[in-house]
């Protein structure tokens, strides 16, 4: 094998090949052509012709079935799942037959009836040396005619202008969204700024408040802040930060660190449901092992040790929501979370 069309023999490579000691085999050329049954036997050719025709007819049938089932089955607000499924299967299979009939028919035709002689075609050089020289000369001439090399002032001001021109685009992109990282710190759990009224913990999705006595040992409540369902706008934004998982353990099982003694109530604890890894809801509570598992990346948090990470890719414990009981016996949040919930971000400070 040589260096057929490089055009630059001096760079032909310095590959050290071996096995040449005993010579190389000579290329015997393309093997002799073998005739097909349909080339020699007119009956076989006729048979192939009939098969191709049959395949095209199958395609026609497929198209007809598609049209019939399209118009025969109508869908609307009262369609049942059975109707929808029937239509999907009919339309899909008829399309499949319509397409496969044409496809296999053409291929069968090509394989059995069209000439199947292999032919050899010479490759041409990807490039032509004359073209290259001419092209280089043209480009050189063009550059010369612009005079850009002789007039550096023009060149430099043009570069400057082009460099600045994209700035408006950057400014426009700035309007895609606000950059208000402080909103990531606050959730709906903060007590009302004016009245100081503390936010009740309510059931997700119904929004009914929860009494401490309702939370029995071993149970897990999915919790949203009171008033979330009444929000007119940004409901999902607030919900994405505020969702909480509420559980009750035997108080002896809880290992409470100094400063958090008042954050739980009789073994009832509330933790942010948003994973500190990349933000999936950590909703799997194992009531015997007291593990919380995130179904997205398997981060596992130990509820008895203030949701420390014991497995998986998360690095930080889940933030705890301080809770207490109000005068009516309902659970309320004493304050907002003491740290931002959810995944880490650059501006997040450690609390």
């Amino acid at each position, binding site marked *: 094998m040589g260096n057929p069309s490089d055009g630059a023999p001096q760079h032909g490579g310095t590959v050290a090949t071996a096995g040449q000691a005993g010579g190389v085999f000579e290329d015997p050329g393309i093997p002799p052509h*073998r005739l*097909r*049954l*349909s080339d020699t036997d007119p009956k076989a050719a006729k048979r192939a012709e009939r098969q191709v025709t049959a395949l095209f007819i199958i395609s026609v049938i497929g198209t007809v079935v598609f049209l019939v089932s399209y118009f025969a089955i109508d869908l609307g607000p009262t369609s*049942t*799942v*059975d109707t*929808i*499924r029937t239509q*999907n*299967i009919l339309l*899909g299979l008829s399309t499949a037959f319509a397409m496969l009939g044409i496809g296999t028919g053409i*291929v069968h035709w090509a*394989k*059995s009836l069209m000439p*199947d002689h292999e032919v050899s075609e010479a490759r041409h050089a990807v490039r032509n040396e004359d073209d290259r020289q001419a092209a280089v000369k043209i480009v050189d001439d063009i550059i010369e005619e612009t005079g850009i090399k002789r007039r550096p002032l023009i060149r430099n001001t043009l570069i400057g202008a082009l460099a600045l021109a994209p700035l408006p685009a950057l400014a426009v992109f700035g309007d895609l969204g606000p950059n208000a990282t402080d909103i990531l710190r606050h959730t709906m759990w903060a007590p009302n700024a004016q009245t100081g009224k503390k936010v009740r913990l309510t*059931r*997700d*999705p119904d929004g009914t408040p929860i*009494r401490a*006595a*309702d*939370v*029995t*040992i*071993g*149970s*897990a*409540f*999915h919790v949203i802040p009171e008033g979330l369902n009444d929000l007119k706008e940004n409901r999902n934004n607030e919900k994405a930060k505020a969702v909480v998982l509420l*559980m009750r353990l*035997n108080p*002896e*099982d809880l*290992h409470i660190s100094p400063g958090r003694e008042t954050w739980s109530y009789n073994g009832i604890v509330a933790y942010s449901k948003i994973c500190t890894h990349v933000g999936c*809801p950590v*909703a*799997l*509570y*194992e*009531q*015997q*092992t*007291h*593990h919380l*598992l995130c*179904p997205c990346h398997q981060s*596992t948090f*130990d509820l*008895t*040790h203030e949701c420390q990470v*014991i*497995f998986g890719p998360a690095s930080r414990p889940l933030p705890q929501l301080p809770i207490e009981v109000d005068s009516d016996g309902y659970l309320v949040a004493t304050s907002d979370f003491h740290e931002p919930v959810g995944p880490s971000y650059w501006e997040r400070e450690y609390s």
Partner: protein
Amino acid sequence: MKSLSQKRRHPLAVVALLVMGLLLTGALYSVASSANKAKADTGFSAADVTAGQKLFVANCATCHGMGAQGSPAAPSLVGVGAAAVDFQVGTGRMPMAANGPQAEQKPAQFNDTQTRQLAAYVASLGAGPSLPDPAMTDGQGDATHGGELFRVNCAMCHNAAAAGGALTRGKFAPPLAGVTAQHIYEAMETGPQNMPVFSDANISPEGKRDIITYLQTIEKQGSPGGAELGGLGPVSEGLFMWVAGLGVIIAFTIWLTSRTS
């Protein structure tokens, strides 16, 4: 219910295990009485209780103790209620065949009458969740509300299509297709094994009925798009594309480029 062979990383696990007996006797009892409007089951006759006790002593007492007061190997059954017995024994999870990460479902060892007798005996030991009201398991609730409750409370473990999912260290949440309405209700009410308890104060009986309705609806109607591929989501879809889809395509390419004889 609880396996000893299960490996735990957590140092507290040993303590937790020891506390388990206490926890389930004392706490569950008080809890059940306060929250689950527990009542002593009145539907059982004294004969049921006696027969149940005999069955219990012969089949369950080795682990749970003669008076069902529990042992290091198994929790106390005082106050777990008839619902827990009907679920555990009715689905074949109890008696446990072997220690594993969790008790697995298998063909039930006791018939309906025996299960009922066992439930009667355990219910007689202390008040706990009773067998569900048939009206709450009829599947005639609100499927939309049930679906919403299911996605919030159940889908993270059991999968949005109720196809099941993995928990830590070999435990898993089973698929829910084919599970009877009564057993689903009892599981929510009693929180078997690592499943949390969804007491009536958390999800009302009507809410549980809605969830059952939703599950029955999706199981009965099937998928409008054809075969569900296990309902497992993108993984089974991707696998199907690589194995079946690409397999068929490759078969066609080989046919297409082969020479006809």
